């Protein structure tokens, strides 16, 4: 027979166990939900279909058809001349650089901001300023409802050769996703801060959504490469876009260095 004091102790113990079991149940439930979501989405293995819709707005049937035709024409062509011809913003000297780094990013993604602040300046200094590589920016605005507008706005800035100023300005002032920091009004305010940018031209470009289909094509290209995360990178030979190496995530400079140095050696060896 247990004494009353021991009974009380056992009761308290049982109560504690009940509480912790309850918390465990909630935790396990959440984890199982996430595992289920992961398994569900891994069954849809076609990256193009999964990414082809654009959640920020509804694309019409004609737009979809047009997009598919465009995609088929330039599908997987990530050679530097083709990327430049498409109108993608780039940094570096395309006439000398044997390597091209294609960056797929979203202005609202905090990991992209991390890459821009921590890694991109070193890449710029080491490979772009020395003429060894060119950095091309591609839009993958899949982090929030406002992302598409920021991409279109950046492309409009690119029309006047101010893409990289706009790019730096947005990442420097990045706020939580969809908090309104890249609302249409705020994007105009950001644009107004860039010296030398003709606001009339910019406003007309932005209001007409001139680069909506351009951004969609970037998203389709990202899908065809199997990119879902931002930032994602593909590093290729500039000339023909061959020998692609993929980096997913906000990698540090060491990761880029390992791949770029290897590629530079390969290019050097092949030219001998």
């Amino acid at each position, binding site marked *: 027979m247990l004494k009353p004091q*021991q009974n009380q*102790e*056992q009761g*308290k*113990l049982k109560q*504690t*166990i009940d*509480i*912790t*079991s309850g*918390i*465990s*149940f*909630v*935790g*396990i*439930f*959440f*984890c199982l939900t*996430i595992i289920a*979501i*992961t398994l*569900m*989405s891994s069954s*849809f293995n076609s990256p193009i279909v*999964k*990414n082809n819709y654009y*959640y920020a707005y509804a694309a019409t049937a004609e737009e979809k058809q047009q997009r598919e035709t465009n995609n088929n024409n330039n599908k997987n062509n990530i050679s530097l001349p083709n990327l430049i011809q498409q109108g993608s913003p780039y940094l570096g000297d395309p006439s000398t650089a044997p390597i091209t780094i294609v960056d797929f990013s979203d202005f609202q*993604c*905090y*990991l992209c*901001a*991390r890459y821009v*602040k*921590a890694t991109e300046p070193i890449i710029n200094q080491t490979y772009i300023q020395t003429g060894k590589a060119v950095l091309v920016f591609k839009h993958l605005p*899949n*982090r*929030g*409802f406002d992302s598409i507008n920021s991409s279109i706005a950046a492309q409009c800035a690119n029309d006047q050769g101010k893409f990289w100023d706009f790019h730096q300005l947005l990442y420097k002032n990045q706020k*939580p*996703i*969809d*908090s309104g920091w890249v609302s249409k009004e705020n994007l105009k305010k950001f644009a107004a801060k860039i010296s030398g940018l003709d606001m009339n031209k910019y406003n007309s470009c932005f209001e007409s959504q001139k680069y909506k289909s351009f951004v969609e094509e970037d998203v389709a290209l990202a899908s065809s490469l199997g990119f*879902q*995360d*931002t930032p994602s990178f593909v590093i290729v030979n500039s000339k023909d876009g061959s020998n692609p*190496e993929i*980096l997913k*995530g*906000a*990698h*540090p400079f*060491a*990761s880029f260095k*390992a*791949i770029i140095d290897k590629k530079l050696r390969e290019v050097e060896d092949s030219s001998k």
Partner: protein
Amino acid sequence: MRPTLSLPTFKSKLLSLLFYILPSPIRIVFSSVLYISLAAAITAGFWIIFNVFEQLLFFWPVWVFYLPEDAIISFILTNVSAVLMGLLVSMNVYIIKHFKLQISKSSLFSGTGLSILSSTCISCSSVGFLLISTFEGLGIVVSNFLSIYQIQLRILSIAILLFALYSVHARTKKGCMIEYNNKRRST
């Protein structure tokens, strides 16, 4: 002549003092090398998982760890979570091993599930994308919520882990007392 305290003696005294400052149930569990090793292994495992998801640790194309400025706070919080998980799991293992009949096995996961969720899903952009692609608009809202409140969620998960650790500590203490009383009665 005044007695002098040599450095090794001082160190060992300091270590034993630190050890005796710890609550007795923790002392009991971690007096065994087995549980220290278990805690260390679990802490290391969770440290790797958290930092891979947080994109601070990479295994390809080179093994590299880096700590950019924006990740310092979350890195500290995930380290605390990893250590707490190591302590918690090994103490739960001790309880299951020693007080089999009194402890529900599900309590092993106390707080752990929520902590894993808040520390991995939030920082893992792929899971964020999966949420978006599976649930579209609702997915964006959930993903954004997890991204925006990741620090707060991590603090919450640490609070849950601390509560779980406290309850494990209480159970170990009470389990030991009951076992001691039972032994006394049987003799």
